[in-house]
């Protein structure tokens, strides 16, 4: 029980002090779970980052589930995942109670009109960074551009096709090509 509580509190603190989520969280989790608490080894940390990047969901959630499970099984996974979510849950819930009324104040509405411009810039900037890190070959570049073009066209002409359809198509194309390429690539083992 004490161990579960420690997992919960530790991840509660991690959840409370990481703004924006994502990669900022990784260094804090590493610092806490590898150096201070010695819950996982350096190697496990690297492994975990790879797993987190290859699975859906925010990296912070993935990491907390992983560490919690390593330490204490299912109940540990629940305790640490709950811990990492709870701070933002409380904060956002409180904000949700008054944001609508808040937006009716003229100055606040003005501030949010400015923020609207910033959000678009931030998202485009984040994707530029992701694109830089992407392993580029003909396939990946074409898929990225095709997905981009398809969604823009859907948005502008108000065609209701879910972007999940785009994702599934991309996965099928990549999988199909991996079968075609099989004989030529001797280096790629099983």
């Amino acid at each position, binding site marked *: 029980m004490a161990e579960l509580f420690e997992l919960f509190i530790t991840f509660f603190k991690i959840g409370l002090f990481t703004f924006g989520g994502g990669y900022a969280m990784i260094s804090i989790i590493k610092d806490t779970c590898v150096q201070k608490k010695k819950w996982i080894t350096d190697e496990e940390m690297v492994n975990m980052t790879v797993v987190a990047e290859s699975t859906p969901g925010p990296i912070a959630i993935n990491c907390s589930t992983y560490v919690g499970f390593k330490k204490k099984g299912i109940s540990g996974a629940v305790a640490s995942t709950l811990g990492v979510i709870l701070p933002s849950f409380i904060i956002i819930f409180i904000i949700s109670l008054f944001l609508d009324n808040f937006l009716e104040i003229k100055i606040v509405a003005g501030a949010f009109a400015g923020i609207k411009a910033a*959000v678009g810039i931030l998202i485009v900037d984040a994707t530029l960074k992701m694109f830089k890190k992407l392993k580029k070959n003909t396939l990946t570049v074409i898929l990225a551009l095709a997905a981009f073009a398809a969604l823009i066209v859907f948005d502008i002409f108000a065609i209701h096709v879910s972007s999940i359809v*785009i994702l599934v198509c991309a996965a099928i194309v990549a999988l199909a090509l991996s079968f075609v390429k099989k004989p030529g690539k001797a280096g790629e083992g099983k």
Partner: protein
Amino acid sequence: MIFLELLLGFLRVGFFAFGGAYAAIPFIREVVLSYGWLTDDMVTYIVAVSESTPGPVMVNMATYVGATKGGILGAAIATFAVVLPAFIIILLIMVIFKRLLNNRYFKAILSGLQPAIIGIIAATGVYMIYKNVFLTGKNASFGFSIKNALFTAVLASAFFAARKLGKKSVSPILLIVVSAVAGVFVYGL
């Protein structure tokens, strides 16, 4: 039945949001708009609020939508739903599919998903900017706003120039604060 809709809607978001903090935004936007839970403007505001508060954007957005549509229970259900797929998948990988990550078919699928996600997020960002500049008419009909165009251009130039000159990236929160202060003077007075 709002609770069931929240559960199903956010399970879908949680299951398809590969690729970190921003990956969930297109899917959340899609789900939230299709159910009519929030306006497009409100989605943009919540992204900004999420960026400026602790926690992953995806979880924050689920909590907000759940809270406004179904109170504390709605918030709990939406947050639970958005996290559940990630939680289960990590456990499955740790317990059963330890070798999944080295499987060549899994790798092939992932190599297709990653670039497509980047394209999808980029399209969402570009469309947000486009809408803010070109669709300012009534009910998001066509209407070019020179004020919004200039505002966006100046903000973007400042953002990228600051990074080039300072050799350090400007944090998202800083950009949001600057845009809010500028917004008060340009739009709020």
